[in-house]
Each structure stands twice: as C-alpha cells, then as structure tokens.
C-alpha cells in the first residue's frame, strides 16, 4: 500500500554515525530518508522492461548492501549518501538484468487507458507513456547512465565509476539516450 511521502527531518551526520555503528533506529531513519530516491531509480530501471515486481526486493537488497559497506562511506563532499545509495541501486538493477535478461519489453506501469478528461491530464499521461517507451528502448547500460545523469545529477566521472566504463562512453550513451527521449516527447507534443 502506498502512502503520500512524509519525509522525516533531515538526517544529520550524527544519525549517519550511529547507523555506521549499527544503531537500528538510525538505519531505519536512513531508509525513511532515502527510500523514495532508491525506489524511484529502481523503478525507472526495471519497470520499462516489465520488472516492476522486483523493485521492492531490490530496494531492500540495495539498503542491505549499503549497510554492509556503510562503515566505509565518507561524507566528505565527494558524494552524498543519497547519491551513493542510488549508485548501489543502479548496480543492483544492472546485475539483476544481466542475471535474468528480459525476454520482452512491456509497459506494465503506464498502460491503463485514460478516459476523456482534462487535456492536461491526457497529455501528461501520453508524455509518461512516451518516456516509458523511450526508456524501455534503451539497453540496461544506457538506461543506467541516462537516469544517473538526468534524474540524480551525477557527473560523467561518477557515472563512469559506477558503470565501470570510460567517460567517453558515458557521453556517447547519454547523447543517444537524450535524443531518443527528446524525439519521443516531441512526437507526443505534436501528435
């Protein structure tokens, strides 16, 4: 059951320190603070290829991996905890897709029909479908690079580190992904 998000107060360094020491309440606070971002990234990676059902399990796996490595996380400005979690989530999703490649691509998230209603609602729905198609059309690796850049603002070097590719490859993947998305949205806007 999904509820409107009610984010707790901003997680302080003290909470992170306590979580690094294994405090369960602090770990819970970290999950509450960052779950939407992690779930969103996983959903964006997996739903377009029919794996929306895996999102919650892989989100849990993401946080478990993070807790296991939390003692090595240095909040020294290089990357925020949220960004770090998103990079772990991306790798988890890529591992899952490599382990079990999707046989078919299906749009299982934006498929319900929208009745005649306000034009803005209809257009938003059409845009969502177009985005879903464009993202689904990307390979998992391209999708990962694209989402890390456009949703989470990682720079080319950070993306290269996460995906274990060189910066040039990151740039070329982003270029192609952007062109696909832009083309899909343009088709929606102009019919």
């Amino acid at each position, binding site marked *: 059951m999904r*509820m409107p998000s009610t984010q707790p107060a901003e997680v302080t360094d003290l909470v992170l320190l306590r979580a690094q020491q294994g405090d369960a309440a602090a770990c819970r606070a970290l999950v509450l603070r960052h779950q939407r971002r992690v779930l969103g990234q996983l959903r964006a990676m997996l739903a377009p290829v029919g794996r929306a059902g895996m999102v919650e399990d892989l989100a849990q796996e993401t946080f478990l991996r993070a807790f296991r490595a939390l003692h090595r996380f240095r909040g020294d400005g290089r990357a925020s905890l949220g960004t770090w979690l998103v990079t772990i989530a991306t790798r988890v999703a890529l591992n899952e897709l490599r382990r079990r490649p999707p046989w078919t691509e299906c749009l299982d998230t934006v498929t319900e029909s929208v009745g005649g209603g306000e034009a803005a609602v209809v257009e938003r729905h059409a845009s969502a479908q177009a985005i879903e198609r464009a993202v689904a059309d990307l390979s998992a690796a391209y999708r990962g690079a694209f989402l890390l850049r456009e*949703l989470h603002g990682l720079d080319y070097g950070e993306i290269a580190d996460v995906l274990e590719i060189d910066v040039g490859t990151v740039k070329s993947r982003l270029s*192609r992904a952007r062109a696909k998305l832009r083309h899909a949205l343009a088709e929606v806007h102009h019919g």
Partner: protein
Amino acid sequence: MDDPFVADPLADGPLTHGERAALAAWAEQDALTGFADSVVAAWAMSQATEAKLEVEAFDGATPFAEPLTEPMTEQGADASVAGIRRLGHRPSGIGGVVGLVAAFAAAAAVMLMVRVLPRDVGSLAVARDCARSAAPRALESESGLAAMERGDGSNSDSVGAPYSVLEADAMAVLTAHCSPCHDGAAEGAQSGALDVFDVRQPKWRTMSGEQLRQTNLRFGELGTVTDDERRRMTTFVEAELSRRAHAG
C-alpha cells in the same frame, strides 16, 4: 515562448528543464508503508547469520562459507537473495511485530558479539562494491602454483624462497581483484578502502591470525574470484600462520 519539447527534437544536448521535469514526474515513486521496518529486520537477520558463519569459520569448519549476497553460482544467487528478501517482508499484525522484536533482539546479541571481536576483523569485509570487473581477471602467474605443486610448505627452514613466492602470488590475486580502490598507487584509490588495506603496503606481519583468516574468508566470498585464486590465497595464509607458529 520557447517550446521545451520542440526546440530541437533530434538534438542530443542536455535536457531542458521541461524535459527533465517530465522525466522526474514519470520516475517519481511514493514511499512504501512498512518498507523501512522490513529493511531493518532483514539487516538484523543478516547480521545474525553472518555472526554465526564467522563463529563456524573460527572453528575451521567452513573456510569458505556460503556468501550471503554474491554467491558464485546462478542457483546460489537466487537462493541467497531470495533468502535475504524473505527475511524482511513487511510485517503485518501481531505476528509481524513479534517477529520484528525477535529480530531486534537477535541484532542486539549480534552487536554484543561483534564488539568482542577485533574491530579490524569486521572492517576487513572486502569491498565487493569496489571489485571493478564483473568478469574474473585471469592471472598469468604460475609461481604460486609451482610452489604448491613442489609441495613447498610452511617449513621454517625454507620459508624464505617459497614463502616469498606465495606472498607475491597472494598479492597478485589481491591486486587483480581489489584495485584500484585498495591500491595506494592507483589513480582510482579510495581512502576508505586504503584504511582497510593497501595492496602496495601489505600488513601481513601486523595482522592477527584471526584477521588473516577473515581476510581469506572475505576474499573467497568475492564473486569474481576463481577457485585457483582462492586456493593461492589460502595457501599463503596457511604458510604465514605456520611460519608464525614455528617462529614461536
């Protein structure tokens, strides 16, 4: 007025504000009720399981315990991840609450046990996330294998030459799987990883016997390590432990 979606439909430049907003709206995900509790419960259970495996490893029962999150085989991967996922299904009702309480009690017991162990042992959990290649990097070195085939063991009288060969071999496999994060001379070295160990400055002499065994255990759990590489690492660790025993 500029149309954010029409400016240049085939261009591959950065997304406009409107495009990015549409993407963010599509990707937005609500929080899940009970998700945080299920994660914390799963974490507590995994800690309890790891502590149990460490105890077994100390007894020498299972030098290469079944890894919890990155096993080597496809079937093991499914079983392991499914097992951890089953640990943390969102609780519901009285049974769920009782389960959570039990999980936290187990976690508290684990925390107490972990504090008894040397801190460095826990921190030597080799960073799987910094294993940079998904495919194993084959090593060309034959020196370690040759030493083993010769039967050169941990004899204090001949520990010089064969020991150095075994040590070099162990360092080679560690470097192959743990660089650049754990390589102080590498461009991609991570300070947090170097705090654990630096392949350029091995601390074998200062590590306790249990720390050596834990290093071996964690290395063996890496998903990218071949059986041969695992054997090389074990051979060196056993040689070092034996050398210390003979040194008295």
